[in-house]
């Protein structure tokens, strides 16, 4: 079988170096390999999920250089030299959970858990720049992440709780937030 020039290019191998959750990984990958497949199949970071592979459901959402992206729409080679944060990197230590993760547990912001990693990353992205989000802000932030179990209510509530906890933690000593 002869490959067309386009097919040959898609299957060509490239060495990439990516920092994922603080660890540097170097690998040779096909040009056509998506970032989500790189994370799941090469690095075995299976916390990031694929739900549609056409950029709609948001289950594969990860942080790429500080912004949330759909890793099914990014090629691994495009992430070369970048920093990626996945759900496995959210917790401060392997035994712990981030405030956001803990809030999801506290208010049961999930059921089957499949959309959860993408939801957490979308919410993490929001909380990085907005610690006082309105309900509308939260719905906007997770509006590109489909969940079939929860009807979003407990997710929205969990993100709001995380925002409240984080803003309290950051409040100056002696402020109302500290007293609470």
């Amino acid at each position: 079988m002869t490959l067309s020039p386009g097919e040959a290019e898609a299957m060509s191998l490239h060495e990439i170096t990516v920092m994922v959750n603080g660890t540097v990984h170097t690998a040779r990958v096909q040009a056509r390999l998506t970032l989500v497949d790189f994370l799941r199949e090469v690095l075995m970071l299976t916390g990031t999920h694929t739900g549609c592979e056409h950029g709609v459901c948001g289950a594969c959402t990860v942080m790429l250089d500080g912004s949330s992206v759909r890793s099914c729409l990014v090629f691994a080679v495009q992430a070369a030299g970048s920093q990626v944060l996945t759900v496995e990197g959210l917790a401060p230590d392997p035994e712990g959970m981030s405030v956001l993760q803990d809030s999801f547990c506290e208010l049961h912001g999930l059921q089957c858990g499949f959309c959860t990693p993408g939801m957490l990353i979308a919410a993490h992205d929001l909380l990085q720049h907005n610690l006082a989000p309105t309900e509308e802000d939260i719905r906007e932030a997770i509006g590109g992440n489909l969940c079939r179990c929860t009807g979003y209510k407990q997710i929205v509530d969990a993100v709001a709780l995380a925002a409240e906890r984080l803003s309290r933690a950051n409040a100056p000593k002696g402020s109302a937030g500290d007293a609470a």
Partner: protein
Amino acid sequence: MTADVRAGFRYIGQRRRPKEDRRFVTGSGRYAADVTLPGMLHVALVMSPHPAARIVAIDTAAALALPGVRAVVTGAELMQGTEPILSGLDLPSMKRYPLALGVVRYAGEWVAAIVAESRALAEDAAELVEVDYEPLPQVIDPEAAMQPDAPRVHGDLDGNVLYRRRFVWGPVAADFAAPAHKVAYRARWHRSATVPIETFGVVARWNPAQQLLDVWASVQMPKFPEHLARALRLPGSGICAHFDVDVGGSYGVKRGLKHAILVGYLARSLGVPVRLLEDRLDNMRGGDAHGPDRIFDVEMAFDDDGVVRALKIRAIDDVGAYAGRAALQLGKPITAIVGPYRIRSVAYEPISVCTNKTPEEAVRGFGQGPTNFALETGMDLIARQLGLDRVEVRRRNLIRTDEFPYTIPSGSSYDSGDYHAVLDKVLAAADWSTLVERRDAARAAGRLAGVGLCCCLEPSGGNASFEPLFNPQASNTTWMEGCQIKVDQTGSIVASIGTNSSGQGHETLVATVVGEVLERDPDTVRVVRADSLGALPSHSAVGSRMAIMLGGAAAGAARKLKQGLIAIGAHNLKVAAEACIYVDGAVALAADPAERLGWQQLIDIAHRHFHLLPPGTEPGLQASYVWEVPTGGALPGADGRVQMYPCYTFESHVVYAEIDRITGQTRLGGYFAGHDCGVMINPDIVHGMTYGGIAHGIGAALYERFHYDDDGQLLSGSFMDYLIPSAHEVPNIVIVDHCTPSPLTTFGQKGSGEAGYLGAPAAIASAVNDALAPLGLHIAVVPMTVAALGDLLATKDVQR
């Protein structure tokens, strides 16, 4: 087992963090796609582009020549090594294999499977398979398919009608002859499904030395290992289904038997582990996971006061190209065929029809959602016809709380309820009169606004006694569930269950129940999933049954274990068991509670001190319990009357909606759901499923449809066109709880896994029709999409 506990629960009903959540938020769930085995190969599928065609030839040479491709399998080979998949109906000549055999019957049907060293290579090779098709006439519309001259989906069947029976329960003819009023209408529930965000996935590994097939599947299916073994010509003990696979949502559809048969066959014939993961497009077209596609023709006979005397329903269900178990979805609603209403006579004519579409699978509620929508459409029409208030019509028809247990014409007894109380509660929470004022103000401002409501039932407890009505070969009268508990020498409690979960929180359920009975902190109870070789019987999480059945099984096992502890304690306190009490895991003298043996003392005796055990006692500390569905066990009578589901959860929704006159877009501006599922084991889990069910119902009501064109092509096979509600479409929902305990269950619990979904489409249709009423318009078709409403509004040439 009767409900002997009503109040004063220690753990049941308390807000507690679900046990499962931590592994999911840390990304350490383990789904089928996360199972990777050394040397594992990957499958891609060749699917038919035609809805009906003869397969003339399949040329696999180019695909096989691609480096990395290990096998290409077609239907002809597969059928040599497997048995056909059983139909839910009595259709021995309808042969169904995972890969088409000679003929394709829907666009998306699997024709060949490629096995390669990577998924990408397999997909590359799939494009190289050349299939020569000779198109055949197709039939897409179910009513057209019923015509005698319609093209036959299965040439060796008499026609496309697979099942048809007319049940008559009570004096239907007399009731229709007598009353003052009648209403006749058609309600159309178009094809949609639960569409979990995880597609189906399965991994299989054959071990020739043990003659054992290990299977990791994203499955929610009763008796999955047994069905798989039969199809693969293996003994049941030749399959080890690993139930510790997390399932990324199911709500009924994750059956995947054909996927597992194919992968099991491939793993065995190739001698290497094989994985099949559907991609989204595979899933939507060829995953055989569409839901009910139903046409209801309904007549109601009622008095001047709006009280319904009699009901006739003809329900045509388009099962698609093959009748799996999903065809029985016309049967389950018989258990609540009159909804929550005192309707004394019913004629029900279910008709199952096949067409050249993707096969139907079980969907949340197993047919009850569409049936509830059809019934509630009638209640609103009666109100409209008589000029009565919709709430009042329902109040006059609802079964009263003093009438329970209440036996409906089709034979099922409703266990308990207080429907009027729940309706009143939700109306109060929603502030119905204020909603009506808001609607009227919106109308005065020129907008299309409506308030809707519904009163619906969720039969729960999952008893499949509809099977014998639809299939004379079926004689099942049990639908049991089991649980095993052991306490080890260190005093740790481990409960073992034999099924997958897909978000329902079964580990939390079992830990809570076991903790409640044994008076131990549920956080200390570990819940594990036995594989199918080690598990007690389970019928899996279908039919809204696990709170009842798994909860009951876990409680039964815990109680046996507790009796054992009391016996040990009594023997060592040298008194009769009746003289002892059980407190916080200790056994004490009732007369002098300071005289006691603590938890660890009792455990030590059970595990280490045989000489201190009562004579004849088994050492160690373990118990198992298998529970039959309460009220189950009977076959239907000749008239088709039978007791089906044991418990009946009630829900009443109130919703406010506005329709954009120009675009036809519906926006929901307030959603309230009154819900009575008896005693809630874990309120956050129940509420979560209810919110999610409503969101799913919003999808079915307004957005989701597997839309086929006249040529049999699926037009909505991706998430770009099959529209699942996002956080923007689902409003902030308010749930109003009510608790009428079931007298039939361990703690008074009822089922809630289908909550919300079973009422939302009916309530939203009520609101939309209220909004359309001033224009004299009515729609009884879901989904009420932008296009459907826009077209309807155009007929009135509303201010455009």
